[in-house]
């Protein structure tokens, strides 16, 4: 039950994009087509799940024993995540070139996706154990994918809309994201 609540909380109530406002860059960047959104979602879930595990180990077995977690956490997390994304980039380029071509520059963007670092840091802050960390990370990523997918659907609709010139492009996307976030306020308080 506790795990279930954790999952629901991460996906719906405290959605990374819609209520924590993390990972906005890929959220706006890769939401033009369902196919690329799905690819990005897969990549993010994969990266975050692995990053949660790796950063947890890093924290527990390297930083904490040596008392470095206070000031080296962010630095080392970023370093590890960056290396990890590069690795995935290479693997994808080799084994899934169409996906790699579709994700284009957005794959390296995961490196700087604050959602990844956010998950890692939140895991430590909440003091989750290994399983919980990975679970939370994965659900947060699923929440990101969920929001990304909904938003892509909307985005396809508003791509065909006819906003005034000054609102075209990113502006109207941000307005839509805001309204989406407004709608998801309805879930507030359901789970802590």
């Amino acid at each position, binding site marked *: 039950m506790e795990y279930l609540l954790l999952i629901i909380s991460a996906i719906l109530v405290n959605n990374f994009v819609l209520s924590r406002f993390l990972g906005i860059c890929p959220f706006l960047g890769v939401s033009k087509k369902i196919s690329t959104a799905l690819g990005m979602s897969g990549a993010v879930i994969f990266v975050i799940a692995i990053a949660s595990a790796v950063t947890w180990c890093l924290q527990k077995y390297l930083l904490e024993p040596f008392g470095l977690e206070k000031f080296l956490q962010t630095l080392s997390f970023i370093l590890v995540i960056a290396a990890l994304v590069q690795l995935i980039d290479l693997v994808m380029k080799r084994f899934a070139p169409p996906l790699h071509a579709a994700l284009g520059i957005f794959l390296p963007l995961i490196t700087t996706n604050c959602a990844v670092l956010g998950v890692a840091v939140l895991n430590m802050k909440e003091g989750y154990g290994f399983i919980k960390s990975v679970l939370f990370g994965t659900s947060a990523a699923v929440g990101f994918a969920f929001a990304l997918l*909904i938003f892509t*659907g909307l985005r396809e609709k508003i791509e065909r809309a006819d*906003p005034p010139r000054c609102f075209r492009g990113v502006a109207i996307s941000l307005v839509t994201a805001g309204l989406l976030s*407004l*709608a998801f306020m*309805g*879930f507030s308080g*359901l789970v802590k």
Partner: protein
Amino acid sequence: MKPESPSDLYIVSSSPHTHSGESVERIMLDVLIALAPAFLAACWFFRLEALRLTFVCVAACLLTEWLCRKAMGRARAISDLSATVTGVLLAFNLPPALPTWMAVAGSVFSIAIAKQVFGGLGYNPFNPALAGRAFMLISFTGAMTTWSQSTWLQKIAGAGADAVTTATPLGFAKEALKSGQALPVFNTGLLSDFFIGNMNGCIGETSALALLLGAAYLLYRKVITWHIPAAYLLTVLAYAVILSLASPATAIPPLFHLLSGGLILGAFFMATDMVTTPVTRRGMLIFGIGCGIITMVIRTVKTGAYPEGVSFAILIMNAFTPLINRATRNRVFGTKK
């Protein structure tokens, strides 16, 4: 020098050359006609407050629409009556004592942000009236949840219940749920009060009777189909029945769920807004079921911030509409069954 042109030119266009005669204006007019009974009921129960809010919202919506179109340099807008419908629906979703300026702010948000920035009617992904209400609920939480005195609670809570008489039935139920108190008994007399509309709530949502009259008209005129309202109401009913079977002591009676809050108004008038809901019959059913589940989750989960979830449920399902449309395409003739 320009040659002389023939005196009368034939119109050339693509086929077909005949039309059913339906128009957007007519659809909006039908919605307004269908909202009339609820408006009369609102005027009866809330007197001048209902008149004031409806007038203010409609006027503000029309003015905003006109200004937006003007600013964008685009033609025709207010004559399609869609802004009027938005104004009426928004007003119907407001508590009676709400200050005028807040109603104006909500109307401006509805029309300007939720509709015209997308290019106007047809392009908006979210129901403008509901987006406006959600915006107000979050911005003016206090005012949006302050209800005038009503006698309905005294019937169940006794004369000494002054402290809680300023709540909607759902708000009351949620408080009871949170504090773990047993719910008072809802007798049939009370439910008939609910049905007629003699309870606290937003001005247009209280009278199920008047709303159902209007809904019948919309169904008769084929402006809406039964799919979304039926799926929505039946899901709520089923959810409520399951809850009351699971824990008979604390659950709210299913009929109470159906008749209280904005459910009837939402199911027939907001969840059926054409622009923001799916186009296929199967999609409509999914939409209705989704609305029902989200509504009940928001209403019945103890820790939830809001006692009523209709607006949020429909807004959230609005967001799913493009995906539902995509997932429920009809089978193309000549492809595998």
